[in-house]
């Protein structure tokens, strides 16, 4: 005669049915995955906007063709220093046409086309570095009156936007986790209530709190793990699609952004999905399981305190 091992009267498959909890946890894991994906995407974009190609420094050199303090013209001296500084990716002197196009609104207002124009060098820096401030004394020495402007208004605004998006994502994840904890608690309490006679009996037969709490917690932990797995799998297609759409904006090089996508290559998918996102999807089910397990342990142990 084969008898099932856990005939201890708790009948957890009745006390904690296997449909309700996994479904709710799956729905919440799905929401958490979307929120986290939003947060990771915002982080990725803000990285690019604040440190990447979006950050441009302009160097204005008035009287570019006047002789410099050392030798040559002022503009040549400045260009020489800037172009060879570490941390500078490119230093491009704007042509007269580019400059006039840039200044067109002001020039038209004054109506004076023969205004003496300064030379402007557009400096793209290596992501994550800000090499200009240490250069200022040297630039000032060769070309007094030189003006360095870090064009950070937009990147600052974008960074602020990205930061608030990340904060929203974090808040959403915290709310989802709180709701998940409440759901696990409510399900556990309901289960305890339906099996209270059996629990009181095995308690009086000498079952430890740790045994009863462990039995409930492994059931809820397992159901939450399954739910988390379901939520992650459900979120995967949507996150892949979103990553694909976002790829051109977050690619670090233009070549990556315009390269045709090889739809059949898992490698290509792995490339466009940020690795943080993949790790998050993998971490979500165990996180749900552990959260369910801990919540249930605490709930059951607190509930058992009513028994002497």
């Amino acid at each position, binding site marked *: 005669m084969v*008898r099932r091992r856990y005939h201890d009267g708790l009948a957890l498959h009745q006390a904690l049915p296997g449909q309700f909890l996994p479904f709710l946890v799956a729905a919440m894991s799905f929401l958490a995955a979307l929120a986290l994906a939003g947060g990771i995407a915002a982080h990725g974009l803000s990285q690019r906007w604040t440190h990447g190609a979006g950050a441009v420094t302009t160097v204005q050199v008035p009287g570019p063709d006047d002789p410099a303090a050392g030798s040559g013209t002022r503009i040549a001296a400045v260009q020489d220093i800037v172009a060879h500084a570490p941390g500078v990716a490119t230093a491009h002197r704007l042509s007269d046409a580019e400059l006039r196009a840039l200044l067109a609104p002001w020039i038209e207002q004054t109506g004076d086309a023969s205004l003496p124009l300064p030379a402007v060098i557009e400096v793209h820096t290596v992501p994550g570095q800000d090499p200009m401030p240490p250069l200022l004394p040297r630039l000032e020495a060769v070309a007094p009156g030189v003006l360095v402007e870090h064009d950070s208004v937009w990147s600052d605004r974008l960074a602020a936007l990205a930061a608030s998006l990340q904060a929203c994502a974090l808040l959403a994840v915290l709310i989802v986790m709180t709701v998940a904890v409440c759901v696990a608690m409510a399900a556990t309490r309901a289960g305890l209530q339906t099996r209270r006679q059996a629990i009181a009996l*095995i308690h009086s*037969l000498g*079952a*430890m709190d740790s045994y009863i709490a462990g039995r409930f917690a492994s059931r809820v932990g397992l159901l939450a793990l399954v739910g988390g797995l379901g939520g992650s799998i459900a979120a995967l297609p949507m996150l892949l699609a979103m990553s694909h759409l976002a790829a051109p904006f977050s690619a670090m090089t233009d070549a990556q952004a315009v390269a045709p996508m090889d739809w059949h290559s898992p490698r290509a998918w792995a490339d466009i999905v940020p690795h943080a996102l993949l790790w998050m999807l993998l971490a979500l089910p165990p996180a749900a399981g552990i959260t369910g397990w801990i919540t249930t342990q605490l709930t059951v142990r607190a509930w058992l305190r009513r028994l002497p």
Partner: protein
Amino acid sequence: MFRLHDVSYAYGGNRAGVAALSHISLDVAQGEFRWLLGPSGAGKSSLLSILSLEVQASAGMVEILGVPVMQARRSNLARLRRRIGTVWQDFRLLPDLSVFDNVALPLRLQHRAEDEIAHEVHAIMKWVGLENRLDARPLQLSGGEQQRVAIARAVIYRPALLLADEPTNALDERQAGRLMAMFHRLAELGTTIVVATHNDAIVEKYPAPAIELAHGHLVRDYR
């Protein structure tokens, strides 16, 4: 084996609650058999539930099998409960478990091996005469049969202290006699036994020292 000193108990808290036991002091040694007597409502079941660690005394000192109950940690109380067997007045069988699983429950909670459990269950169920009802559900049994299952569950783990609340009220005379014989045998082997009853006939037939309660007070403790 157990000692009570000035123990009181009130259902629903000391102040507003119903006083079920007042200032009970008792000292029962290992291997003793005691009747617990008194009219209905005297507090017999209440005293047994203190001894079976189902409730905490509201006041006084309780020591069971050498453990001071009022100061003991929860895990120690759980371990102590494994050495106390109880036959409750209302049996407390789990309706959704088979008779086998009900009787096996205490051994399963002690993580005994399944083949050892099967052996023990068959032996004790044979003794109570229900070896062919192992797969039945408790509610498919008569009152007397349920009572015998409850007795089997209480003695299967060979407790050091055995408490029985009206264990013969659903049994016929022959079965009651067999049960009393088993109690005396267990007492000889060192089990301390307290049996509550208001069945005067059986007390007369099997004379033994008695604890007598009335209105929650100890009126007699004689040997």
